[in-house]
């Protein structure tokens, strides 16, 4: 099992360019998440999905869009990149556990720089 994989690992964009980050998981998890990590800010939730075809906003959703057309994939889009979106992006997946959430499994991350 590969677990959670992310594509690409690194990317440099110019301001105004667009791109899509791909997350794939092979654990048949219901829930998937996109986080960004900046120094001193911890992990901040961008968007998440509790099932195929559903998405929800997290703490910092502005400037990002997501889609979950297939259960195993969760895409994060930046329509018009800004320098403030320079960050490390992590995808994660998990399953529900009772009325809460089970362990989250994280991908290796994508380091994005916007010039």
């Amino acid at each position, binding site marked *: 099992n590969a677990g959670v994989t992310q594509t690409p690992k690194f990317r440099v964009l110019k301001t105004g360019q667009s791109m899509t980050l791909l997350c794939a998981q092979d654990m048949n998890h219901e829930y998937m998440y996109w986080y960004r990590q900046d120094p001193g800010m911890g992990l901040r*939730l961008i968007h998440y999905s509790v099932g195929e075809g559903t998405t929800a906003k997290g703490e910092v959703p502005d400037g990002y869009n997501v889609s979950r057309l297939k259960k195993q994939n969760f895409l994060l889009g930046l329509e018009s990149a800004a320098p403030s979106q320079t960050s490390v992006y992590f995808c994660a997946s998990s399953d529900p556990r009772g009325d809460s959430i089970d362990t989250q499994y994280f991908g290796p991350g994508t380091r994005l720089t916007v010039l």
Partner: protein
Amino acid sequence: GQQVMQIPQYQHVQEGEDFTTYCNSSTTLSNIQWYKQRPGGHPVFLIQLVKSGEVKKQKRLTFQFGEAKKNSSLHITATQTTDVGTYFCAAANQAGTALIFGKGTTLSVSS
């Protein structure tokens, strides 16, 4: 919105010293999870605490969940250089569909 406060933000210790990080919430938590992120790596699950007053141990790591289920701690006994990294606590949001992470405590260890 719901927040999980974690202190300290940074901690430097000499190898062999103990280390503790604390996690606090203003609301009662259904459970709390702890993750470790090595430098340059991704967060990795360590443990989940569910019961009031629960204490769990993993070798030199001791995890506690407060009686009121509003706070938690991670204690490392006799730190080693392999303990270096950032430790995060995380709690489920009210809907039970996502985790809210603390900002983490970054531990550095000198030998």
